[in-house]
């Protein structure tokens, strides 16, 4: 698997800094599963945090702080380093390995088929992910092969991470692990490629402006 499309460095830095809002962070954490290049960038950026933390002026701790801490760790077991988990395949032979990276499984479980999908259009379904983030929204989209995602312009930024299958827009193809990072003021028309269609994670920071009539009417109802 070669990842061709990556998030902008500003997102990678924000993720490492811990200043990126939760919904965007889900997309970055999920992309990292597929992308050694971006993992390396995050590790590099985390060293900025380490360096700056080490250089902060000390704030004196309460005199009792150390005693309190030593009392707290009394009897606290140290965790073993995590071991590679047995894949889902091994534990239940009938089940396929989940297509969802762990970062997403912690929000929506491991079975996309079991999600209560909401129909957007005939061949486009969505599931909104619950977060504590008011700045951006994350949802999973499921698009049937050859069908377009409703054509839209953006008022803000949108990230689309392919989890399964692929889609194409006017310029490029996006396969599993690829993250499309679309800036403001772009109009594009992505289409799910042939085969099994496409499942992706989409994060955006402003309501999409659908150009087609029906989705625009449904927009307030579906909260998209």
């Amino acid at each position, binding site marked *: 698997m070669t990842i061709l499309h990556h998030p902008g460095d500003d997102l990678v830095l924000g993720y490492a800094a811990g200043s990126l809002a939760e919904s965007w962070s889900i997309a970055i954490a999920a992309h990292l599963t597929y992308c050694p290049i971006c993992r390396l960038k995050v590790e590099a950026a*985390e060293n900025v945090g380490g360096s700056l933390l080490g250089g902060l002026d000390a704030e004196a701790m309460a005199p009792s702080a150390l005693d309190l801490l030593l009392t707290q760790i009394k009897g606290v077991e140290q965790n073993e380093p995590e071991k590679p988990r047995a894949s889902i395949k091994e534990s239940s032979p009938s089940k396929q390995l989940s297509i969802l990276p762990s970062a997403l499984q912690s929000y929506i479980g491991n079975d996309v088929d079991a999600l209560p999908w909401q129909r957007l259009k005939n061949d486009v379904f969505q599931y909104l992910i619950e977060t*504590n983030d008011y700045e951006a929204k994350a949802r999973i989209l499921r698009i049937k092969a050859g069908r377009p995602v409703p054509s839209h312009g953006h008022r803000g930024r949108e990230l689309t991470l392919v989890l399964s299958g692929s889609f194409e827009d006017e310029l490029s193809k996006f396969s599993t692990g690829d993250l499309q990072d679309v800036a403001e003021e772009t109009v594009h028309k992505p289409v799910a490629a042939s085969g099994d269609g496409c499942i992706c994670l989409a994060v955006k920071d402003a309501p999409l402006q659908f150009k087609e009539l029906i989705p625009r009417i449904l927009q307030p109802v579906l909260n998209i």
Partner: protein
Amino acid sequence: MAPAQEVSPDTRSDNDLLLSIAVTQCREAFSTLFQRLGPRVKAYMMKVGASPDVAEEITQETFVSVWRKARQFDQRKSSAVTWIFTIARNRRIDRLRKERRPALDPYDPLLVPNKIPTPLEELEQSSIVKNVTASIEKLPVDQRDVVHLSFIEGLSHQEISDRLKTPLGTIKSRLRLSFEKLRLSLGDSQ
């Protein structure tokens, strides 16, 4: 495994302290590490507006996690101070921003491994932090400021733009430029 128990913990590096916490559950090493970095973690919590009491509490929680997770520390992948930064950062998101921190699971069956050793893996981790520190010091003030606001004050790029009354695009390009220089200093040219 015989740790260097005769050596006074005070002279040991943060990395060595963390390793002896992991290997021998050494409370002395843990105390030294806490005395060195605890006051900095507390300062880090106060930078986002936590009161001294709350900052103290989250610092305690951070170090309980350091104790509990010490065996997960991998000195080939990270230096002690960077590793502790990531734990403190995640506690801060959880406690002060009340959001969750979506994290990569290094043992995810879907994880695509590195094919070739990366420049970072070939460098000594302790020298990485030194290089990064030197590289940050060399940044122009406007770039250093946005890096600080993002990493230490925890501001989003939009919030930095509002705070400095500077367009968002300018903030992002300052961050990008500083990141490029930083990565060059680590010998990573991708």
